[in-house]
């Protein structure tokens, strides 16, 4: 027989309070803004779901959402396979292990805005190391403040540089947890390298990879600082991702109502995709 004890709630209370104050209450104020209109002086008018409708129908939102999905898709399609490949080629034992791990962790230790500033300087056409090299040594016309393609290549490369390590480290953790006997058995069974990857390494990495992809999805979908520092959303609107657009609406134009509605939609999309992905990836494990 299980005895029910209501005391447990008491221990959860501090966490509930914390979540309430740092997430729920701020979020409720956003909900509040999203259904009202204000012209200042703290005077509000009821607006209903008008802002939501307006945002969902606006071309500007569609374009930003499209760019956002494209960005997230690109970095995932590069970072995940690349991260797995690097993890597979890292040594599993010996003195090089800590060296590799530290090297891998370095980019992740750098603050977002510093990463943005670094890459900004790095890619300046006349004085940046990369910019100078491309323009004056290779003879390629490269200027991310002028050319949307260059801007995209730059922010994607920067994100790959900054965050592939996360996938590497998580995949590596999955790989080193595989006992030697698995590799030995595979050799005895005559498995090819591909079969070893497909039937031993990939399944053992699945859980950590799910988490890595989830983290990379949420993080890249909400990315703000680096593109803001580097391109400011330009040239034109070409790198105006959702969060950049959101800030423009909220703080640039001070349209609090539409901005609030947009952030709720934004939040809902992030939540929905994460939930779908996680459910799909873990459904096998449950039965």
């Amino acid at each position, binding site marked *: 027989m299980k005895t029910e004890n209501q005391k447990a709630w008491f221990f959860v209370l501090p966490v509930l309070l914390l979540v309430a104050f740092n997430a729920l209450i701020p979020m409720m104020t956003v909900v509040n803004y999203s259904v009202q209109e204000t012209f200042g002086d703290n005077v509000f008018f009821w607006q209903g779901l008008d802002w939501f409708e307006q945002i969902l129908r606006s071309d500007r939102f569609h374009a930003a959402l499209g760019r956002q999905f494209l960005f997230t898709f690109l970095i995932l399609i590069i970072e995940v396979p690349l991260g797995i490949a690097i993890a597979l080629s890292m040594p599993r034992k010996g003195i090089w292990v800590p060296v590799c791990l530290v090297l891998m962790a370095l980019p992740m230790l750098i603050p977002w805005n510093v990463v943005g500033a670094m890459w900004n300087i790095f890619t300046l056409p006349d004085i940046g190391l990369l910019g100078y090299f491309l323009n004056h040594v290779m003879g390629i016309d490269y200027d991310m403040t002028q050319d949307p393609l260059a801007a995209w290549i730059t922010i994607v490369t920067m994100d790959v540089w900054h965050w592939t390590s996360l996938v590497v480290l998580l995949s590596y953790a999955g790989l080193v947890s595989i*006992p030697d*006997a*698995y590799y*030995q*058995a595979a*050799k*005895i*069974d*005559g*498995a*090819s390298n591909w*079969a070893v990857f497909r*039937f*031993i390494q990939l*399944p*053992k990495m699945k859980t950590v990879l799910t988490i890595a992809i989830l983290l990379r999805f949420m993080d890249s979908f909400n990315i703000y600082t680096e593109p803001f520092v580097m391109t400011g959303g330009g040239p034109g609107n070409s790198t105006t991702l959702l969060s950049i657009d959101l800030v423009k609406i909220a703080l640039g134009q001070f349209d609090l109502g539409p901005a609030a509605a947009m952030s709720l939609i934004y939040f809902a999309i992030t939540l929905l995709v994460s939930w779908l992905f996680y459910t799909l990836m873990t459904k*096998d494990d449950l039965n």
Partner: protein
Amino acid sequence: MAKITLSKLRHSYYPNPKTLDDYALKEIDLDWTDGGAYALLGPSGCGKSTLLNIISGLLVPSEGRILFDGQDVTELPPDKRNIAQVFQFPVIYDTMTVYDNLAFPLRNRGRDEATVRERVTAIAEMLELSDLLDRKAAHLSPDNKQKISMGRGLVRQDVNVVMFDEPLTVIDPHLKWKLRSKLKELHQRVRATMIYVTHDQTEALTFADQVVVMQEGEVVQIGTPVELFDRPAHTFVGHFIGSPGMNILPAEVSDGVARFAGQAIPLEGPITAAPGARTEIGIRPEFVSLGQFGLPATVTKVSDVGRHTVVECEVAGSRVNAIVSGPGPKKGAIVQLEFRRDQTRLYADGWLASEAAEGAA
């Protein structure tokens, strides 16, 4: 199917071994006859797994050669040697069904699906896995997983040798017994050479026709279970096999007579020990009885183990076990120990150094 010959095999895990202690295997010369059921028995760390991995090709020995039917395979990788090996902990391919797991070694070698089906069905039948064939292997119990591992080892028909490295460690005791008899039965059916590694003597003695006893990287004795019990070639074997093991008593030898605790102990036959060697008398507890004459001893412990009673005595600072039927004496009692002469042997520096008398046995 092949005869496997190990010739002057040595192996060290260090790149530059210096002393003999750096070697996990110290010079092994051994023939495994085709179709034999072998057990490789020895304490933890004596090099059993190392030896298996060398035979299977997972390890390349530092020195020496491995021959399959006279052909040198020392440098060949496992998949070129036509061998199968089952490991201590179950290895299964999580994402595959039980059927696909069993089919894996065959498919990797390009067998056609009809053959695969026939073999997998037969093996599943033998191992009682038929009902599970369509299940995902990931969620099975440890003993079913280990059965799958064993199945993958047995599924190929033409292997030279199937090696089991302590395969029953994770299995429940009652199932252990069942699987072991199953393996024995399988061996009689498929007739492939089987090498079964264990550090459990009961397991070794029930499975094998021939037991290879190892200690610290060396083979100390090869023989049938009966031979190992009757005439251990080394005190280690005597001690390791049997429960309790052989009594090993410090002895002095002079003028062809062995003495223990000041008394002359009659041996099975003539002594072959070189002078100056460290000598010991060995006698199994089964052949020590409590009588009227013999060595006076103090009983220190009496344990009733069901079928018989183990009486632990002390004689001149040495412990002597005796196995008696029926209730034993009280603790602290003074008893006289009699050694059965034809089972009393002499060991010099650990190795057997007495001969059975003519006409005995």
